[in-house]
């Protein structure tokens, strides 16, 4: 009685899933070389000089403020007890956080085999270095006696001064300096093959000499690539825990104190998520104009912007969750100081920083990226990124100064007011950052040519292999004929 088994009818052959190419318009290797090296080899365009004049004079004025602060004293800033950490440490955390996106792109996405990173990793890593340079300025000048900053280094001396290795601030010195050094090594390792490209294309003696020196005689030999790839992989593997540790250690500066709103265990992951969030916004802030100016739309495609927007949405949601959890724990803990501090965050002297910076910029604006038309529209993307850039600065300020303005002792309550030196030192570091980035795009390839070429289909050793020709298995055990 059983009906004959019927074969389920297949409607139509499953369409093969095709990947959207990472380099559009089937651009070939030499197009990539030409376009990317061309940016460096053309004479500087007029807009570059105008932009550089503006950023360099801002940077110069910032350096003047730093000089004035060092020669006169920390009193030139608005810092007063109880607000001993204010704009300076806010700026430090802000800049160091921005660096994190570069390392995430260069290391973590490399380990996850995300090939789209190849279009953006070079400039993101450069951004990391420049952001860490800006960050490192602040703790250095905040110590007051800048010329004694070397006491932070554990060197034998005859004053009987020794570092307290169990202090979060000492951990920070090691974390940030290690982070900078490893980022430089990683960035330079990635640059070597591209410097060889510029060396081979160089027409003037000076360029030939300089690129020749820095390319270390790279000749693209596979016996070299073998060690190179292993070094690159290991540097990525080392940078991954490093980048997660750096902002964790920065958060320990706060979490290991007794200040309400600082003394929380959620800080390390919360800070790391916030750092990646703010950093990706800065990557897009720099790359969207650069891509438009240098006509790099075939390399930094809508797909790249879309993916970065998704990471901003993801990490922004982490951050929003962390904000919510802080409020929940303040209420649930029953600690009246903690409750007061968080009430103060929303309705205290910095209320609008919270409503605008943390709520609107950091929590709400990235939610636009749930919609694909928002992720595809560069103006919306740029708007959200600017919101996030601002919001992350406000967040750090609220955490740092907001926690200090209302001390345990009401008689010492005092609201922080920045002085012109505070403001211009911060603006000056923006000038330093943008000046360094402008110099970078003029003199070094802003896209990793040797890496982006591997994202082109022709780079696949099995591309266009004629039928009948046997290819080697991944294990390399097969032999030819």
């Amino acid at each position, binding site marked *: 009685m059983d009906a004959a088994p019927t074969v389920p009818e297949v409607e139509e052959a499953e369409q093969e899933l095709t990947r959207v190419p990472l380099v559009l318009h089937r651009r070939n290797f030499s197009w990539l*070389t030409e376009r990317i090296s061309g940016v460096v080899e053309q004479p500087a365009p007029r807009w570059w000089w105008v932009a550089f004049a503006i950023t360099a004079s801002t940077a110069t004025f910032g350096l003047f403020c730093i000089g004035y602060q060092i020669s006169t004293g920390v009193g030139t800033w608005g810092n007063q007890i109880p607000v001993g950490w204010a704009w300076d440490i806010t700026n430090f955390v802000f800049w160091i956080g921005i660096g994190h996106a570069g390392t995430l792109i260069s290391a973590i996405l490399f380990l996850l085999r995300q090939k789209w990173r190849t279009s953006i990793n070079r400039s993101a890593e450069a951004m990391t270095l420049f952001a860490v340079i800006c960050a490192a300025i602040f703790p250095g000048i905040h110590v007051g006696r800048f010329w004694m900053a070397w006491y932070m280094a554990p060197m034998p001396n005859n004053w009987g001064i020794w570092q*307290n290795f169990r202090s979060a601030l000492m951990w920070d010195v090691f974390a940030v300096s290690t982070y900078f050094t*490893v980022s430089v090594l990683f960035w330079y390792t990635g640059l070597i093959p591209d410097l060889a*490209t510029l060396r081979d294309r160089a027409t003037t003696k000076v360029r030939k000499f300089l690129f020749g020196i820095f390319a*270390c005689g790279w000749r693209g*030999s596979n016996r070299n690539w073998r060690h190179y790839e292993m070094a690159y992989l*290991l540097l990525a593997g080392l940078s991954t825990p490093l980048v997660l540790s750096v902002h964790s250690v920065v958060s320990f500066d706060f979490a290991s104190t007794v200040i309400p709103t600082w003394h929380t265990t959620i800080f390390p992951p919360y800070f790391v998520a916030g750092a990646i969030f703010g950093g990706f916004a800065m990557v897009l802030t720099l790359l969207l104009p650069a891509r438009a100016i240098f006509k790099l739309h075939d390399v930094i495609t809508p797909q790249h912007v879309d993916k970065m927007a998704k990471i901003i949405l993801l990490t922004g949601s982490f951050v929003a969750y962390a904000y919510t959890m802080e409020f929940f724990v303040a209420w649930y803990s029953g600690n009246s100081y903690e409750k007061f501090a968080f009430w103060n965050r929303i309705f205290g002297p910095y209320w609008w920083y919270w409503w605008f910076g943390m709520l609107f910029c950091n929590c709400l604006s990235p939610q636009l990226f749930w919609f694909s038309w928002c992720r595809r529209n560069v103006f919306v993307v740029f708007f959200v990124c600017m919101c996030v850039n601002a919001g992350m600065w406000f967040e750090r300020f609220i955490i740092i100064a907001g926690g200090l303005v209302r001390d345990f002792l009401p008689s010492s309550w005092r609201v922080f007011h920045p002085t012109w030196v505070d403001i211009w030192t911060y603006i000056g570091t923006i000038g330093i950052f943008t000046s360094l980035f402008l110099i970078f795009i003029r003199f070094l390839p802003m896209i990793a040519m040797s890496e982006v070429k*591997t994202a082109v289909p022709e780079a696949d*050793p099995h591309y266009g292999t004629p039928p009948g020709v046997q290819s080697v298995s991944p294990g390399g055990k097969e032999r030819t004929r």
Partner: protein
Amino acid sequence: MMRTPAGHKVYAMAAEYPSAAALYEAAKHVRDAGFKRWDVFSPFPIHGMDDAMGLGKSWLSGWVLFGGVTGLLTAAVVEFGPSSILYQLDVHGKPWNFWTVPAFFPIMFELTILFSAFAAFFSMLGMNGLPRWYHPMFNWERFIRVSNDGFFLAIEARDPRFTENGVRELLERTGGEHITIVHED
């Protein structure tokens, strides 16, 4: 030492290949012909080329392990030596017992990473024999494309199996173009 009729020392016989795939297939043939002193050159690392050339895993990782262990031990000595023995700091009256050791971990971690990264970078240069600002391959004018879109294969004259006709035939058979002798100087 092999010399050309003009008296130049011969470094290698080299060929250019039209694509990464062609170079990859050619490398397998050269490997199976038993050559040992040869190399391929490409603008980017070609996936699977190490196997096609018969090269194993790079043991650069050993140096990185060495660097990491050195960093960890350095941190341990720098931290525990002075802090526990030479110059004990009493901060906030915090205890000094065994359970406070984790407070030393962050710096041990950071120095482990730092020394490993230096080891990775410098062993990469060292194992590749870089920096080396001169190489016979640069004598071939076509080789300038190696950092752009050129794919090259060179079999060195000092390989015991090297014979001019045999190598030329092998390179031709595998689809090599612009086959040439590369001079040492």
